[in-house]
């Protein structure tokens, strides 16, 4: 008798899913870091305060996510708009300039933008927001242009020929087909922003980098570990989630 194949149930799929594991770890550690105090105390007996206490980890996590979300939101809206503009006939003359600026901009380390923003704007969250939004623009613009370029010409020609106006062509044909590539750009932008936001704690923004920076200046390895693990997990979870989103948007391509 042959064994019948039983597809894994919902639980089975969840157990195999790396995103689920990473997300679980992230949530547990964020809310449960304090309960690991004995562990840290044992590992670093010389430290008086083995767990970062100047702020709660959930608060730091939220602040970090908020900073990244707001700056990336601005970057996405502005970046996609710029990419669309430059690929239309009205904006075509600006295209090579935009492409050069975006390419050169990405050879800059993102920290540099943050560092230049501070003397000009001051300390706190604002320079971080502006620096992250500005730097986050670059991959989004680049990938929006690439995605829109990759839309098959035949589809665009017929879309126009059948009577779609410019906005309808954009909404029904160009953007949906360019979406996977645009999301790839957004993914890059967000991941970079998560990293730069971590360093933004040097300028007074409240993020998951704060325990790391405090730990570095105070020689408190435990703080460093706590901040690093949390922000590392955040980055991994975000990356995995975007990977899912990309695949979801491209679903039709996978239909046999």
């Amino acid at each position, binding site marked *: 008798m042959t064994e019948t194949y039983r597809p894994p149930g919902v639980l089975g799929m969840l157990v195999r899913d790396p995103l689920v594991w990473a997300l679980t770890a992230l949530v547990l550690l964020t809310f449960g870091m304090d309960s690991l105090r004995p562990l840290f105390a044992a590992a670093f007996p010389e430290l008086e305060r083995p767990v970062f206490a100047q702020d709660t980890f959930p608060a730091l996590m939220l602040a970090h996510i908020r900073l990244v979300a707001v700056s990336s939101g601005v970057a996405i809206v502005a970046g996609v708009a710029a990419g669309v503009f430059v690929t239309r006939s009205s904006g075509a003359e600006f295209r090579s300039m935009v492409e050069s600026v975006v390419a050169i901009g990405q050879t800059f380390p993102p920290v540099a933008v943050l560092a230049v923003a501070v003397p000009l704007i001051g300390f706190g969250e604002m320079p971080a927001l502006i620096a992250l939004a500005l730097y986050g623009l670059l991959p989004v613009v680049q990938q929006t242009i690439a995605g829109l370029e990759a839309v*098959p010409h*035949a*589809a*665009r*020609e*017929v*879309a*126009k*020929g*059948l*009577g*779609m*106006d410019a906005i*309808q062509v954009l909404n*029904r*044909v160009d953007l*949906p*087909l360019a979406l996977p590539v645009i999301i790839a750009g957004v993914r890059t932008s967000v991941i970079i922003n998560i990293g730069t936001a971590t360093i933004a704690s040097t300028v007074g923004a409240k993020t998951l980098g704060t325990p790391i920076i405090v730990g570095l200046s105070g020689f408190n390895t435990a703080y460093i570990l706590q901040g690093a693990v949390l922000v590392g997990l955040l980055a991994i979870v975000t990356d995995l989630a975007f990977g899912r989103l990309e695949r979801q948007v491209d679903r*039709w*391509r996978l*239909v*046999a």
Partner: protein
Amino acid sequence: MIELQHVSKAFGRTKAIDDLSLTVRKGEFIVLIGSSGCGKSTTLKMMNRLVEHDSGRILFEGQEIRGFKPEDIRRRMGYVIQSVGLFPHWTVERNIATVPELLQWPGPRIRDRVTELLQLLDLDPALVRGRYPHQLSGGQQQRVGVARALASDPEVLLMDEPFGALDPLTRLALQKELARIHIASGKTIVLVTHDIDEALRLATRVVLLDHGRMVQSGTPLQILAHPANEFVTDFVGRSEIGIKLLGLQTVASRVRRNEPGEGAPVAETLTLREALSVFVTREVERLAVVDGDGHAIGCLHLGDLVKSDE
């Protein structure tokens, strides 16, 4: 229906269309033909304003097309191109529903129309409507492309070398479908091709272009029997004119009624050219002819092929 009056168009320094005047009457099947670069595609695209003409007037139903918004004109004309251009992220159903959706038809009406069109183009609606373009063969994709162009029941159908990328068998099948659709619906069709046989097979009127100018315009018979000049003769295939003329007529026009024939019968709808091929392969001089229901009609003699019809 569509009228071009002294239209010219230049791209940079090259004159693509030179003082062209052309009338497309309602219900006609016009084929624009010529070699590469003669301006046939440009002429087609000027009709739906994908290309704007430089000088002259283009009228649609008596009105200057510049007076319409381009989108409004295009929604009244179907458009089919060689590379099909199906939207890869939409199902067949949604592709076909493109223009009806733009015109905001109600859902059920769109669904029924999709079923109707798929059947018209010989595709199984239940099987095909939920598929994505990449799951279809080239021939099926172009059938969907034609269905999409017909979806809103436009007055005119514009086709730019629609079957050029298909294999000969599929091409023939689709040509027959198109001819059938033309006769059944009475639509005005403007088709561009460089294949003279396709033109002769489908057109009610052939327009031969060269370097942006009209060389001759006439029925397939006129083009073959009375070519305007050497260029036309060369284009249609000097050495094959006779054979092509045979392709324009059917067995039914030359059959000797009520005369018994011999051997496996041929259909009366066969062209004389196909009949000639049967004569040669079977090495006979007489063929039995049947009608659509299989009833014997008469006999076709080899010699009758060369008789003049007039």
